[in-house]
C-alpha cells in the first residue's frame, strides 16, 4: 500500500526528514524501550529539535511513533503520546496536585518525595524540586515517548541518580522510548544506548563514546 506502510513495521520513535528554521534531522531512530542521547553546543538547536518532534513548533517532515504518524493525529493527540519536558518546568495552578489526575505514588517515591508533596504549593518548591516533580507530572500523563531537555541540569548527584533510575525503570516497564539532551558525556554514556549530536543545525549519529 505504498511507502507509508514501511515505517508501520518499526516500533519506537523515528524522524523522517524533519526540518525547521535552525535545525534539520533525519535518520533518528529510537527503538521501543531504549534511550538515545542528544548533545551539541549551546544554541545548536537541540531544544528546537525537541519542540519540533513534540509538534509544539511548526516543522516540515514526519515523525513516527510505533508506526503512527504525527500528521495522522491531532496536535494534542500526538503530544499526549510524545511528551516534551522543558529544561525549565512551568506550573499553572496553585497546588502540585492540580497539575495531573493520575499521579503515581511509586514515581514520587523514586524521586524522593512523600505523597504529601501533592498538597504543597508550587511557589514553595525549590527549582530542583520543581524539576523532579515535572518528570513525575509527565509520567502521570502516561506518555509513550519522553523528550527530556537537560532533566538533571539543576540537580545534585543523589537526585540526578534518582531521575536516571526512574527514567530507566519507566522505559523497562512501559517499553517507552526516550530522547535525552545532556551536556555531560558520563551521563550520556550511563543513560543512553545510542548517541546523536546536533552540529551546525544538522543532526548526526555519533559512534560510541
Amino acid at each position, binding site marked *: 500500500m505504498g511507502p507509508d506502510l514501511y515505517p508501520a513495521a518499526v516500533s519506537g520513535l523515528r524522524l523522517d526528514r524533519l526540518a525547521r528554521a535552525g535545525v534539520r534531522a533525519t535518520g533518528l531512530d529510537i527503538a521501543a524501550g531504549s534511550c538515545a542521547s542528544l548533545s551539541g553546543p549551546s544554541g545548536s538547536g537541540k531544544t528546537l529539535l525537541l519542540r519540533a518532534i*513534540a*509538534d*509544539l*513548533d*511548526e516543522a516540515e517532515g514526519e515523525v513516527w511513533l510505533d508506526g503512527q504518524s504525527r500528521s495522522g493525529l*491531532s*496536535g*494534542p*493527540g500526538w*503530544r*499526549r*503520546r510524545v*511528551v*516534551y*519536558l*522543558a529544561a*525549565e*518546568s*512551568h*506550573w*499553572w495552578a496553585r497546588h502540585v496536585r492540580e497539575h*495531573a489526575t493520575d499521579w503515581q505514588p511509586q514515581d514520587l517515591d523514586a524521586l524522593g518525595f512523600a505523597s504529601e508533596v501533592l498538597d504543597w504549593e508550587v511557589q514553595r518548591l525549590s527549582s530542583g524540586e520543581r524539576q523532579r516533580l515535572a518528570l513525575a*507530572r*509527565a509520567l502521570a*500523563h502516561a506518555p509513550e515517548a519522553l523528550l527530556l531537555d537537560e532533566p538533571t541540569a539543576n540537580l545534585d548527584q543523589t537526585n540526578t541518580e534518582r531521575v536516571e533510575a526512574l527514567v530507566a525503570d519507566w522505559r523497562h516497564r512501559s517499553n517507552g522510548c526516550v530522547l535525552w539532551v545532556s551536556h555531560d558525556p558520563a551521563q550520556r554514556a550511563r543513560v543512553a544506548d545510542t548517541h546523536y549530536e546536533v552540529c551546525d543545525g544538522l543532526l548526526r549519529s555519533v559512534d560510541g563514546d
Partner: protein
Amino acid sequence: MATEPLIILSPFDLGLAALLVLLLAGLSWQLQLGIGRRMLIAAARSTVQLLLLGLVLKALFSTTNLWLVSALATLMLAVAGYEVMARQKHRLRGFWGYGTGALSMFLSSFSIALLALLVLVQPAPWYAPQYAIPLLGMLLGNTMTGVAVALDNLTRQTLEKRHEIEARLALGQMASEAIGDIRRDALRTGLIPIVNAMTTAGIVSLPGMMTGQILAGSPPMEAAKYQLLILFLIAAGTGLGSMAAVLLGSRRLFDARSRLRRDRLSG
C-alpha cells in the same frame, strides 16, 4: 405636555465650561502630571467631533435615508475598531489585529441595535436616524470599552503566561483547555465596567442618557424606562461583544494543531 421647553446653551456657557478644562490642564502642567497636553487634545477632539456630529445628524434627520444611516453606522464601527486596536499593547498581527475587535463589535452592537429598533422601540421607519444613531452610538461606545479591555487582557496574559500555556500543551491539553483560565479572566474584566454601571445606576451615578432626557424636559419616569432599556441592551451588547472577541482572539492565538502561535502577536 407640562414639561419645560429646552433651555438653549449659549457659546458663552460652553466657553465657561471649556475654561475649566483649560484650568485643569494648567494645573496639570504646574504639578508636572504630564497629562495636560493629552487632555487638551482630547477636549479639542471631542469639541470638533461632537459639533461635526451635530451638523451631520441635523442633515441626516431631515432626510431619513437608510443608506445614509448605514454609511454613518459603518463609519462609527470603523472608528471603534481602530480605537480597540489602538488600546492594545500587544496586537494580533495582520488583519485580525483590526478584525477581531471590529467583527465582534459588528456582531454584537449591530444585532442588538437591530433588535431594539425592530422589536422594542419600533420607530417609523425602523431606521429613523433620531433613534438608530444614538442607540448604536451608545451600544458601540460601551461595547468598544468591554472588547478593548477583554482583548488587551487576553493578549497580555497570553504573552506573560506563554510558558505555562506551552507546559500544558506539551502534556497533551487542548488549546481551549490550556488557555481556559486566561479566557475566563479576560472576559470577566471586560464585563466589570457594565456590571458596575448597573450596580450604581441611580444611586451613585445618574446615567448620561437619563440626565440628557431629563435636561431636555422628558418626564423622569419615561427617562428612567429608556435608561433601563439602554442599560440592558448595553449589558447584552458588551457581553456578546467581549465573548466574541475573546473567542475569536484566542482561536487566532493557536493554529490548527493547537500550537501556541507567539509569532501572531506583536510586541
